[in-house]
């Protein structure tokens, strides 16, 4: 055919370069905007939450690179987070004062933290490389155990690390909640994941997830891909650890308990394995869930027992119905809402009835805060029972996707729109 004009050939590159620069600038601007808004209009508590949300988004998105995109089951992500925090801890203890004296410049603390992020990335990426190496030979669950074990080794080393105060931990300087940097890091993690998926390398990652044997046959270097995933994932976790350390200012092994790794893993699963936006949104919302649940009022013990029994019955009924019914989506949704309403009424009645049982009504009411982690665990189980692929599954959040979902749930509305 006719040779295409040179403009159209060079255009995509130039265009992608321009859009790349634009989105980078946009991200920086957005990060500073977040910092400005949360610094100006929110309390220091809420400001801290905004910062921590970014940290958890980074953690979730970076773990998604390992777990979701490459399919390597890592349950020790907090170890890399901790390595980042301890790197900056040690370096700040040794050199921050000297730096402070030597370089008297504006935004001195921010500069130091950026510098520390660089070192945090190096150490945690190195650790990621070490952990990634066994994946040469290990598969699936075995790798999970190795990552878990690595996490434990790091925790125990930290307990014995007297330079950083052992189990007590140590206070580090400078203390600063760098909201813009945290969000910029989160955006970088999201952007990098997205660009990875759009590139040839990304396909190699995906192929390792889908079928290692087929991937090898197609010439993908599995080892290198897996190790690369680990290195990238842990580097982001390490950078997040640096920021987190400077926000918390007192770092100790207690901050990095094993549960943390599970929670980050849950975020990834919740959002949908492989879905970047899913991980990011789940990271932010699941991080906020326990904080929101602080407001729960004390629950009488009878109502609690009623809720537990009612919940089990409702979930059972829902599960049974959703597995066996072949009705239209809209009918199904309506029935399920009906079951939930009946379930709630059932819970209320049961709670009232139980309050007449003397041994139950005599029990002290349960503080709302005691229920937070329980609610968290129940959410997890229920989600897995009804939507095991996660909220977003493999999809990314986009307006198009939202529209297609809505179209499926509300068929009539779509007809109305199209006609």
């Amino acid at each position, binding site marked *: 055919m006719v040779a295409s004009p040179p403009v159209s050939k060079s255009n995509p590159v130039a265009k992608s370069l321009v859009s790349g620069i634009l989105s980078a600038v946009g991200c920086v601007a957005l990060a500073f905007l977040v910092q400005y808004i949360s610094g100006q209009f929110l309390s220091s508590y809420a400001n801290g939450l905004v910062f921590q949300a970014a940290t958890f988004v980074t953690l979730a998105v970076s773990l998604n690179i390992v777990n979701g995109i490459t399919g390597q089951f890592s349950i020790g992500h907090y170890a890399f987070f901790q390595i980042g925090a301890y790197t900056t801890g040690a370096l700040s203890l040794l050199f921050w004062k000297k730096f402070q004296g030597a370089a008297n410049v504006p935004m001195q603390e921010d500069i130091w933290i950026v510098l520390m992020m660089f070192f945090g990335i190096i150490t945690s990426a190195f650790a990621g490389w070490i952990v990634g190496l066994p994946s040469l030979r290990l598969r699936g669950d*075995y790798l999970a155990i190795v990552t878990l*074990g690595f996490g434990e080794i790091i925790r*125990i080393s930290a307990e014995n690390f007297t330079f950083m105060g052992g189990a007590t931990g140590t206070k580090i300087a400078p203390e600063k909640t760098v909201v813009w940097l945290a969000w910029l890091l989160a955006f970088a993690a999201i952007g990098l994941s997205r660009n990875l998926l759009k590139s040839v390398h990304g396909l190699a990652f995906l192929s390792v997830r889908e079928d290692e044997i087929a991937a090898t046959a197609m010439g993908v270097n599995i080892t290198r891909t897996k190790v690369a995933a680990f290195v990238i994932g842990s580097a982001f976790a390490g950078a997040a650890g640096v920021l987190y350390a400077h926000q918390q200012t007192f770092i100790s092994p207690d901050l990095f308990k094993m549960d943390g790794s599970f929670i980050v893993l849950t975020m990834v699963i919740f959002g949908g394995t492989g879905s970047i936006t899913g991980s990011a949104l789940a990271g932010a919302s699941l991080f906020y869930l326990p904080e929101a649940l602080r407001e729960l009022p004390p629950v009488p013990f009878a109502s609690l027992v009623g809720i537990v029994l009612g919940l089990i019955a409702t979930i059972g009924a829902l599960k049974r119905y959703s597995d066996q019914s072949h009705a239209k989506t809209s009918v199904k949704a309506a029935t399920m809402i009906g079951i939930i309403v009946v379930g709630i009424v059932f819970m209320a009645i049961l709670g009232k009835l139980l309050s007449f049982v003397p041994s139950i009504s005599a029990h002290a009411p349960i503080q709302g805060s005691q229920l937070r982690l329980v609610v968290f*665990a129940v959410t997890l189980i229920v989600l897995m029972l009804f939507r*095991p692929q996660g909220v977003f599954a493999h999809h990314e959040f986009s307006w198009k996707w939202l529209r297609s979902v809505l179209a499926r749930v509300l068929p009539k509305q779509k007809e109305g729109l199209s006609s």
Partner: protein
Amino acid sequence: MVLHGLFLGLPLAALDIRTLPQQIVNGLLNGSIYALIALGYTMVYGILKLINFAHGEVFMLGAYTSLFVSWAFGFTPNATVEPQTQVWYLLVMIVASMTVSGLAGVLIERFAYRPLRNQPRIASLITAIGMSMLLQYGGQLFLPNSPPPNIDAMINPYRGNVNITLVKSNENLVAAMKSAEQTKLTADSAWDAQKKLEENSFYPSAKGQALQDAAQKADRDYIEAQGKYNNSGVSILMPVGRIITTVVTFILMGVLSYLILFTKRGRAMRAVSHDFDSAALMGINVNSIVTFTFILGSTLAGAAAMMDATLYQPGLQINTFFGLLPGVKAFVAAVIGGIGNVPGAVVGGLLMGVIESLVGWAGYTSWQDAAAFVVLIVVLLVRPNGLFGSTAAEKV
């Protein structure tokens, strides 16, 4: 030297060869509990390819059951009357603990894992983690926190130690010990007589102070001489409670092996483990086999929990996190042995116990848990499927 300075607990230990046999035996005895819990992990993994994170919590429920049964027998912390002590209490406790654990395991499988069997494995894994968290934190609302059973001292009629002497103590040191004891007794009685005159022996008068100092000096000399005598020999001390635990462990393992290797149901289990779908096509009721597996694994955990809470280590406090650490360690043991392999779990458990003991023997008790994981990683690097794991290629 830098490491030595930076990290606490790295004494360049003087290895004491005389405590080595004792430590190895300690390790084997400790390892048998790990082995018993590890069996549950390994069986479930063999059948479902699922790491049952809630297994540690099944163990915890078993411990609570034995505690409540002991309370029913009158062993409450504030008991006014010393309860009657009878051996069959122990049997009732272990049976109750095994029953409740078995039931808990089955319920968890039925309602949390089975609905997800056709979903990606990661979904069941997350449910398992959720289940584990639910039992830990939800249990806190209903279960009493850290109640002390201390049943061992009251019930266990076989309480005491079995002492095996490997090298006899140096008899030449006996005379020195005896004379030190004499001095000690004299000094002590002098101080005791004076103590009766003093109001508070911790605020003695000048005369009392002198007598007290002398008595304390004599005490120290006696302990020194006694230690010299004791340490000149080599012996192995085994608390009977632990021996019972180990023996029961091996009996249960024997029963388990028989079930798996020589019964029809065991053959069906092996078939399901080998190929889930083909087994179903061959007419095996897969659901009932999975249930059976959970019953077996969870009952073993229940037995381990009862023994751990009562006989094995007297006075351990029970809370809802009771199963966390033993669970993780047993899990590691199962993986070292080759997860899915029954003898592997036993060997892995014993090996874990011995490794921990040896690390402690070398003077690094603060690194015990880390050492277990280091060994795990090394084993997996050398033999990616564990020591006894099948080497068949895994289809992903």
